[in-house]
Every structure is written in structure tokens, then in C-alpha cells.
């Protein structure tokens, strides 16, 4: 085919144009305090949710204090899971 050569050329041109069009995402480096703050809010948020669910469970099922104990532990683990995910996202960048 005659057009094969032209098509190939066009494809190369499109490829180079696409590469030059999408500049590498430049992530801003955060300072240490901001980073620490980000991590701590993740843990605190998960603990708040865990304790909240625990208190609600205790109130409506009358399982005081086991709901709170169990969901506090779940919340703590979820907090660590959040931190792990944040760290993995940062490492990927």
C-alpha cells in the first residue's frame, strides 16, 4: 500500500506531539510538618469513625462496653491501613 508509509509517518508525528503535550506531572514536595499532619489526620479520622460506630452499636444493641472496645480496635487498624495507603501513593509518584 502507498498510504502505509504516510500513515506510519503521521503516527510518529502524533506520538511525538502527544508526548510533548503531556508534561510530566510535577508533584510539589511537601514540608515535614505538612506530611506529619496528613498522616495524623488519617489515623484520627479512622479512630473517630471506629469509636462512633462502637458507641452507636453499644447504645442500640446494649452490648456495653464490648462494641466500643472492638470497634476502637477496628478503627485503629483502619487508621494504619489509611496511612499505609497514603505512603504507597506517595511512593508511586
Amino acid at each position, binding site marked *: 500500500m502507498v498510504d502505509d508509509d504516510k500513515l506510519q509517518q503521521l503516527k510518529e508525528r502524533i506520538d511525538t506531539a502527544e508526548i510533548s503535550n503531556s508534561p510530566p*506531572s510535577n508533584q*510539589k514536595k*511537601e514540608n515535614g510538618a*505538612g506530611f506529619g*499532619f*496528613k498522616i495524623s*489526620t*488519617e489515623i*484520627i*479520622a*479512622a479512630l*473517630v*469513625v*471506629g469509636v462512633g*460506630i462502637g458507641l452507636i452499636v453499644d447504645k442500640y444493641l446494649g452490648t456495653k462496653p464490648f462494641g466500643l472496645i472492638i*470497634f476502637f480496635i*477496628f*478503627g485503629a*487498624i*483502619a*487508621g494504619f*491501613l*489509611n496511612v499505609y495507603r497514603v505512603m504507597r*501513593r506517595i511512593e508511586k509518584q
Partner: protein
Amino acid sequence: MAAKDSPLKQFEIIPYSKTELGSYDISFTNSSLSMVITVAVITLFLTLTVNPRSIIPSRLQLISELMYNFIAQLLSDTVGDNGKKYFPFVFSLFMFVLIGNMVGMIPYQFTFTSHIIVTFALAAVVFIGVTILGFVNHGIKFFTFFYIPGVPFYMHPLLIPIEVISYLSRPISLSVRLFANMLAGHTLLKVFAGFVVAMPFFTGALPLAFIVALTGLEILIAFLQAYVFAILTCLYINDAYHLH
């Protein structure tokens, strides 16, 4: 209520008029005024600067285009092609938080992002919207988001509650981060401003110089927190499309 000279007095809500709808207090307050100013600034700035639509943009038009590109790039980087639909939402959210923070940096101006109810409302909109989006895209299969494949079956009763708590903690961490940063920064500024008056002779110049530096840092944080809010919204939208 904060004391007369407390550094927390700046966060006090002052109602300008007393309006009640049923049992709800919907008075127009200094917080509402601040939000109205923010929206007016955004609308006026964006419409006026891009109005000439010149091929060679003026400096102000360039700022608007930079903001547009910034969020468009963010969306295409994190969500991909699906992200274009959510541009208006993410852009509005980003501009509201960013300009709200910046308006708050003007002396005597109220900072509405320093109130957790405001940031939590924004985060709740994101959270509920993203959850609905997940159900629209995946139907009942959305629940597999909490199910981690490749784990022994007896671990699931432990892991599913943990995943659910982790998911529910998203709006809280999103709102607390923005609110606490703004609250802490503005309180710190006022505390140091107190030192300027309290220190003897000319040593007050030292904290004054520190305030100048701190104001610069606060403007950086104001931008960074708006950016974090926008990028996390994008990541959550991405999660609603790709469950794992």
C-alpha cells in the same frame, strides 16, 4: 464565647440579621458574607479576565487559563478520560476553597474554611456524590470495594469492617485537614501578634518579622490545602470507577 482579646475571637460567628426558618437559624452571618465575597470574586475575576478571549492572553487572562489547565491536568492525570465530566465540580470546589482561604488572609476578614462545619459539608458532598457515583457505575457490585481478593476466607469478617471504617473516615480526614490547617495558622498569627505588643522596648520587632514570614507560609498552606482537597476529590472519583 471567646474572651475579648483571645486569639480565637477571630473565629466568632456574628449574625447580621436574625432569620429563622422553622426551628433552623438561617441568619446571614460574617461567615455567609465571606462566602458571598468569595463567590463574587471568583465569578467576576473569571468572567472579566477571559471576556476579551484574545489569542495572545493578557496577564490576568493567563491566570484564569492557568487555573483551568491546573485542574484539567489534575483530572486527566488521576481519573483519565472519564474525568472530563467532573471538571466543573472539581474546579468549583478548588476555586471556592482556594479563594476562600485567600480572602481569609486579608486582615479583619473572616476565614470560613476555619470552621469544621463548612469543610465537613464540602467533604460530605464529595463523599455522598462519590458513593452514589460508585453505585451508578457498578450497581450492587460496588460492595466488592470492601472485599479484598486473595485473602483467606476466615479473614473477611475482620477485614470488611476495617475497610468500611477506612471508607467512612474519608470525609472526616478530608475536612479535618483543611479546617485544622486554617484554624492553627490563623491562631498562630494572632498569638504572635499578641507578642508584638507584650514584649518590652523594641524587641517586639522580632515577632513582627516572624509574622511577615508566617503570612507567606500561610498563603502557601492556603494554596496547598485547596490543592490537596481537589486532588483527593479526584482520587475518590477515580476509586468510584476502578474499584481496585
